[in-house]
């Protein structure tokens, strides 16, 4: 996984009062597995879009880490 994406995921986790993780698998659900609430997901998406000049929610809201990776590949 792109190290910048891992860095963003960990930044959002820390900002949300959660511990950073060493790695992230594609099937991790942002809400159920990573414990992100709506503000954290919005922060994650905004940070990814700024860093990668993307629009990951363009065709629907992302649910998993893999959804973000797929959107970045399409970008």
């Amino acid at each position, binding site marked *: 996984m792109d190290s910048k994406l891992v860095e963003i995921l960990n930044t959002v986790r820390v*900002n*949300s*009062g959660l511990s950073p993780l060493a790695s992230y698998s594609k099937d991790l659900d942002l809400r159920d597995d990573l414990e992100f*609430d*709506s*503000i*954290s*997901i*919005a*922060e994650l*998406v*905004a*940070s990814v*879009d*700024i860093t990668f000049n993307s*629009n990951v*929610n*363009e*065709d*629907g*809201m992302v649910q998993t880490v893999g959804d973000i990776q797929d959107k970045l590949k399409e970008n």
Partner: protein
Amino acid sequence: MSISKNITFNMPQMALEAISENWLFKEIGDAHWDLICDGLNTRSFDLKNDTGDRLYATFVRIKIECNATLKSFKENEQAVLMGDINRFGNSMYFSNVHLDAGKKSIRANLMTTFSIRNKTDNTKLAKSEPADVVNQVATLTGLPQIGSEYRLLKKGILKEIIHGDYHFKVKEDQIFETVYELNPYYDLNGVNLLYFAAYPIINDVCEAKYFNQKFKDQRWEQTYYTAYKDIFYYANCNIEENIIYRMHDCEKISDDAYKISSSLIRESDNVTIAKLFTVKSKKHA
């Protein structure tokens, strides 16, 4: 994006010989919404997500601070309302709205996201964001404090809210509790959701019950006026709901002012729908 308009305080803008807090919230909320619509170059009822569902602005947090109290503003006084807006990503919007009348001023900070309605249940609003829009609202590079504090308070991590000289310890103690029966004609908005501007008034109606029992020689509503209010919006409710008001803390911070922490809770499922941090004062400019 910015907005500027002149306002005269007449009876529709007033209550209890002061600016009506209900009117104030509606006015600053409308300014925020106008700023979003201007930035997205759309009308509010045309704002939709990628599946064509109508989007509604959902207030996350509103903070107002007066340099005196709402009673400092007088009938027929002229004021200027000015505001600007920024966003972080496509779903979080942050406005600053000022209302100035001479040396008297109110500073408001507002944060919204977008939701789509569940047509039968107001407790099940889903987050979404606008699609197919050219967004001209300036972008921030990080989540502002107003948003990060909201998240940490909701998670129970933030233990203190600090604004200038006001320090609110976040407590779950209960020093007073009462039940508020919704007034649908007043509390619900045009799409039958509990209006964001109703939350502070529900809070104040219940808060006054406490103080009017405590001070029998004066009416709280006509003595102490809002100088500061910080509302963290968590959830909405349906028309048949009762709201539990719970006061967590009340501290006299000077001869003229009280600092109060409270929550609004849905009676049916015990879910907290808002947390409020208030300063009321009887010292007016």
